[in-house]
């Protein structure tokens, strides 16, 4: 394998999972249809053939069962990586994730750790039916005891999945499903950033745009369009939703004085809300305009034919950029 390769994110994740399984025999995968089918998004393709049915388990069809037994396996010394088939199907496991997985280390007064990863393909742009396009990150980021991350590029996907698996804490690993297929360069030799760090995806001076997952591609597109009109935009890729690495965010805001946060999730009580509040608290005197949020509307994710209206696109981001600049 050459150090640099152009891969889609689904394949980068596959390579990352494979590497983690090779490095540590305690790493096991569990989920619905992840065996011979390779998962509905083919992220686990070929892994059962190579590692066997004991390490890549097609489970019975029950999300609470998957996460609940992953907890027991973790107590036994395994490092389970659970696949939830789609964002909207994580909720049958919500109790196990929030009341058990998230709290067991605390309940044991530190006596045990919970190295469980829950991979969730999330977000819109794929034209699917209900429960297949949601962005449930706020529920998890709101839950003490869980770490929450989301890569936006194949390179980050390859490294972040390995870092998540080696973390001794439970990690909710959100995979932006609309980004599974576009290719990007993966450097298999050089890791780059640590798991819980915010990255500068594009340098600019007048406005900071911040997002995670699939939104980063939209922000980069918005930045291109803004540049054509002479506005210099900085784009930050959040990467980690819990904890949030505020250093690069505050640094950027101190430079630009303006922050627009974009997310597919509904805006109310969202990750974007949390960041807006924190930036207002910590960088108030640097701000030239209020922190603005561009979000999914506070409705259920609509039927597919309305998704392009619901999901923030570059135009909606630029509308907010204009408002920020107009202050």
């Amino acid at each position: 394998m050459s150090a640099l390769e152009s891969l889609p994110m689904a394949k980068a994740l596959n390579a990352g999972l494979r590497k983690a399984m090779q490095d540590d025999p305690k790493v096991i995968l569990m989920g619905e249809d992840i065996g011979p089918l390779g998962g509905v998004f083919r992220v686990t393709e070929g892994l059962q053939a190579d590692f066997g049915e004991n390490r890549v388990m097609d489970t019975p069809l029950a999300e609470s069962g998957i996460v609940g037994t992953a907890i027991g396996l973790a107590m036994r010394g395994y490092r389970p990586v659970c696949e939830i088939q789609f964002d909207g199907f994580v909720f049958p496991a919500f109790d196990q994730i929030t009341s058990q997985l998230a709290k067991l280390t605390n309940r044991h007064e530190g006596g045990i750790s919970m190295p469980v990863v829950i991979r969730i393909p999330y977000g819109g742009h794929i034209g699917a039916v209900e429960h297949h396009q949601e962005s449930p990150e706020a529920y998890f980021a709101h839950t003490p005891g869980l770490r929450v991350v989301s890569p936006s590029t194949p390179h980050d996907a390859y490294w972040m999945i390995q870092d998540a698996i080696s973390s001794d804490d439970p990690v909710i690993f959100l995979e932006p499903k609309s980004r599974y297929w576009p290719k990007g360069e993966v450097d298999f030799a050089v890791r780059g950033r640590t798991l819980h760090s915010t990255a500068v995806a594009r340098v600019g001076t007048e406005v900071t745009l911040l997002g995670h997952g699939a939104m980063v591609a939209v922000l980069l597109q918005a930045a291109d369009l803004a540049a054509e009109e002479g506005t210099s935009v900085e784009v930050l890729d959040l990467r980690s939703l819990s904890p949030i690495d505020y250093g690069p965010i505050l640094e950027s805001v101190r430079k630009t004085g303006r922050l627009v946060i974009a997310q597919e999730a509904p805006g109310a009580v969202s990750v974007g809300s949390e960041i807006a509040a924190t930036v207002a608290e910590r960088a108030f005197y640097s701000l030239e305009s209020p922190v603005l949020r561009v979000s999914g509307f506070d409705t259920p994710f609509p039927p597919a034919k309305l998704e392009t209206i619901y999901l923030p696109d570059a135009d909606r981001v630029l509308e907010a950029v204009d408002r920020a600049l107009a202050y």
Partner: protein
Amino acid sequence: MSYTEATLQLLSPAGALVESDATAEYLPIVEKLSDDELREFHRVMALTRAFDVEGTNLQRQGQIGIWVPSLGQEAAQVGSGFAMRPQDHIFPSYREHAVGIIRGIDVIDIVRLFRGLTHGGWTPSEHGNFHIYTMVLGSQTLHATGYAMGITLDGKAGTGHPETDEAVITYFGDGSTSQGDVNEALVFAASYQTPELFFLQNNQWAISVPVSKQSRTPLYLRAGGFGIPSVQVDGNDVLISYAASRKYLEEARAGGGPRFIEALTYRMGAHTSSDDPTKYRTDAETAHWAALDPISRFETYLRSRGEGDDFFAEVRTEAADFAEDIRRRTLELGVPPVGAMFDNVYSEPHPLIEEEKQWLAQYEAAYASPEASE
């Protein structure tokens, strides 16, 4: 997993009536059916198949986002669907197109759902009490049980008047039997002795996972552990599907408590149009089940009773017209107005929704034609 000695069957795969001790109590139920009713069974099975074939075509041509075929499961659905009474309520999963047709939904509403125009599609109270599809596996079994509890609270079952006493039927798949919700539904149903039929279509697969991964025991036997009487039927035999459903629904309606039927059938097509079944199942298996096709089996039976070519030709024409009509109306479907997503999020006004709806309307107006906003 194919039929066992326990599997009740009235029609052999060759289309001949089987008489046995096990089915002795079911045969009289079927004997009460008129020729017209039997013809209707065939007709709805044929229409449903045409609908599925057309749905799949429309999906391939980009007219529908995803298609979820009921292909191969028509007999289980048509038999149970005709066993209900008008006052009964149905809580389906997402594959019960034949039942929907029987209960009078307009199938274009199923197309609207899978085309991404709506999350629902029809109003149950205006469409034969056929509730909307549920995508989160197994959830509907609890809703069905709660509805049935309400029937009991209202004193609308077990009064000795089958013409007005109500019952509930819920559909779910073999994979879904592993969900907590389904098991909790069985607990509640048994606890409250609901007038309810749990109708499991075991089509052998949950996407790529075989039923053997969900259960070591035939699934109908699980019901016994909950204290719920159950049987396993040949779900590709429309007559036993009808007779067993009829018997069990009437027992539940009469106050006998919940019942459970496992209908052995086969998902002859892909799980959905997004699925590639060649990745996980063999040609030999699909060929085995193709020979057990529910529609041709019943056609053979009807012919043996003297039904002639004319009738089958008529149905074929009607099915072709039905498909053609769906195609035409699918192509005519528009897109919902953008404001539609803000409707019905709540029953009562909600300020945040109002604010966002107005914001979007202004944004769209400004964006669509900048001059217009002056």
